[in-house]
């Protein structure tokens, strides 16, 4: 049998081996997709299940067990630790997106200037830090020396300028036609006016990639906070509280005061699942919009810094 391939106009054979291969291939793709979704679906279903029945269950849930209950969510959304974590995470995300992106843009702009004698030395100065670093302990000691340990600023200042993003912005600016800029200059625009009024709209796509990865990385980050904020629970991002509940399996520290009485109740069993959903939902919602930037981001290098 001979049929014409749709995409390239090629002549394709469709023998029985081809059909078997297609079935297996499509089957594998569907199976893996199910495997990707199932754990998250399981958590979502568990979070609204009857806690008593949940205790006895040990399989993957496809639908909620027993009567649907929102008790777990009510408990989580009234919990002070979780709310603190949510607030902190939001602050860190917004700050890093706004201030971080603007600083990265300004720095990339400076490095891209052809009529600026410092541009090349500055670029080399920054690129050197991509290859060599002090490592964990020396960095920790420097932060300690300047009083950043257990200080909110440690989540807001050291991550502002990312050398990879900066170099990406630099090459984006360099690829622009210099005509725009020259005409603005003739009209008497200063460098910052040129950057924000003329050039920024032209590098929107690159900005979107940087913003998307900043949001995802800051939202998901837990490691720096665990090292630099060991004794400042009120500054913790949500992920650290989630670590306490999910990994260390310790709901007692988070559920304090009036919740403590309830914690004896089986409802605390639900908290684990509800927290997971509450902490992951924003990423899942942003995900479909972020999709088209994945390829650029992946070729840019490591995403999880």
């Amino acid at each position, binding site marked *: 049998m001979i049929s014409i391939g749709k995409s390239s106009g090629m002549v394709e054979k469709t023998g029985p081996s081809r059909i078997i*291969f297609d079935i297996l291939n499509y089957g594998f793709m569907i199976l*893996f997709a199910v495997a*990707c979704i199932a754990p998250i679906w399981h958590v979502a279903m568990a979070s609204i299940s009857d806690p008593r029945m949940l205790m006895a269950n040990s399989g993957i849930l496809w639908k909620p067990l027993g009567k649907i209950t929102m008790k777990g969510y009510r408990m989580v959304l009234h919990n002070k630790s979780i709310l603190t974590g949510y607030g902190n995470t939001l602050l860190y995300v917004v700050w890093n997106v706004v201030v971080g992106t603007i600083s990265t843009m300004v720095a990339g702009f400076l490095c891209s200037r052809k009529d600026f004698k410092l541009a090349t030395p500055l670029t080399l100065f920054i690129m050197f*830090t991509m290859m060599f670093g002090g*490592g964990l302990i020396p960095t920790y000691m420097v932060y300690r020396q300047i009083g950043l340990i257990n200080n909110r600023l440690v989540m807001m200042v050291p991550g502002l300028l990312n050398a990879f993003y900066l170099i990406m912005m630099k090459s984006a600016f360099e690829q622009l036609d210099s005509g725009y800029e020259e005409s603005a200059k003739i009209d008497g625009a200063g460098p910052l006016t040129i950057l924000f009024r003329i050039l920024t709209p032209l590098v929107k796509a690159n900005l979107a990639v940087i913003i998307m990865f900043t949001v995802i990385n800051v939202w998901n980050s837990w490691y720096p906070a665990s090292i630099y904020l060991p004794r400042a629970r009120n500054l913790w991002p949500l992920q650290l509280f989630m670590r306490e509940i*999910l990994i260390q399996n310790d709901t007692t520290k988070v559920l304090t005061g009036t919740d403590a009485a309830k914690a004896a109740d089986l409802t605390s069993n639900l908290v684990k699942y509800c927290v997971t959903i509450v902490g992951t939902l924003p990423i899942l919602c942003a995900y479909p919009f972020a999709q088209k930037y994945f390829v650029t981001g992946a070729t840019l290098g490591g995403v999880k810094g």
Partner: protein
Amino acid sequence: MKKEKALQNYQKKRTWLYDLKMNRWLYLLSVPIIIYFIIFNYVPMGGILMAFEDFKPAKGLFGSTWVGFKNFKDFFCGASFFNILRNTLVINLLNLAIAFPMSIIYALLLNELHLKFFKKAVQTIHYLPYFVSMVVICGLIVDFCSTNGPVTKLMVMLFHIKQENLLQNPAYFWGINLVSDIWQGLGYGAIFFVAAIAGVSQELHEAAAIDGAGRLQRAVHVTIPGIMPAIVTMLVLRCGMILQVGGDKILLLYNPSIYSTADVISTNVQRLGIEQMNYGYSTAVGLFNSVVGTVLLVISNTLSRKLTDTSIV
């Protein structure tokens, strides 16, 4: 061309002083950026000296006692050295030998899907686990591998192992780590190869098809050679990182009962340095790690240039 040349000449002729006057705003903007990189990147580089000291924070970098290579000797002769090095290598080599080829095969299989919307839909779903936070992923692993978890139940049913918390048994850690890595990274890890496959010349495919090459033959003789540079690039990068295990995942998953198979260099640095305040020793281990990493990167890059004419630098 002419304009560029003129600009170059202009730049050369310009003295620093004149440039400073003309671009004073640009210089002013550069100052905070330079300070930022000095404080957060260059000063810590100086801290590497701690590796050769018995560092005490109270005495400072220049007041602490010099001990030469004692910290390195302690590390190489330490009881846990062999263990940590083996775990780091095994975890990375397993990943390189199994997860890496799988993402190439996955990209090739994806390329064989002809229903456009289906391809897009499954790809979207397959990326998903990569964007879920490590804390949640590890929370799921902890939950699923607990004594009554679904994964444990499945393993008991399939292989008749003892029903226990899988994360408490050192024998299972490498497997759990590898499988969860594949689950989380297969879709996203293949993006690079998917992009490379899209770039393979369509004419070559057509020519091969006219010569009677089937799908499999074309995949082997056209697609794979076409994406070889991409494969080599990734392989070189991975070889350079062979001593760098993503410490954050292991930090979340391990516990003292499985240190024998789960403790790697980065977790060791973190535990001894930050928690036990063994600063000099930890810095030495970190330094060893990055020096070996750089050497490996250079070697693998040179090898790939010699063998395949592809290199990343």
